[in-house]
């Protein structure tokens, strides 16, 4: 049985920040409506070559720049763009 598709949310805001809370809630709504998918929070400090090579089924570039490591966020964007992985940025 295939695993649940994982969507990486790249965001450095603390969880309690209003924009972060809104993002979690909105993705809960969207995933609930579709009935599949799982959100994985990724801090830019955690982005490494393995994550860049396999960012998941989808990538959400979350609000709240400046990021701690903006070039790493850009690397994930490049990966999604060149690999045809769905991406949304807000």
């Amino acid at each position, binding site marked *: 049985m295939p695993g649940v598709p994982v969507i990486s949310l790249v965001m450095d805001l603390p969880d309690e920040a209003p*924009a972060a809370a809104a993002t979690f809630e*909105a993705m809960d*709504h969207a995933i609930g409506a579709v009935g*599949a998918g799982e959100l994985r929070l990724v801090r830019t400090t955690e982005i490494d070559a393995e994550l860049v090579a396999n960012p*998941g089924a989808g990538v959400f570039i979350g*609000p709240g*720049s*400046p990021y701690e490591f903006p070039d790493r966020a850009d690397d994930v964007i490049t990966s999604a*763009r060149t690999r045809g992985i769905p991406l949304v*940025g807000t």
Partner: protein
Amino acid sequence: MLVEHARNLMGIENAVHAEYGLEGTAIVDALACSLVETEITVDLAPGSRLAGIHGEASVVERTNCNYGLNPEFAHIADAKGLRVSARDDTGEVRAIERTDHPFFVGTLYQPQRTTSTRAPHPLLVAFVRAAIA
């Protein structure tokens, strides 16, 4: 997304986001008019993915940002596979998408601020559908 596009596809290797205070070409710059805690109406480009998702010509969205595409580089939003998919009533770019990609959409507003369990935001639902396909 705009900085990545500028650096890797437009040949602007020193493209930067002005918020970081780095030397370089500020592709993303401070907005002339702040969009912090603001509601804006955006016109969706006919034929765009975003217009297809909403099924409407314009939508009202909430914003909370002080930065946007530098008007001097507006041309990069309609080049190398990128297109403008929404503008506000001043004509400024508020959303972009790639035409050479299954699903690649960026907004300068926050769809996550206009959503509920009963009415999840159409863009985020479309994104999740694309991800699990």
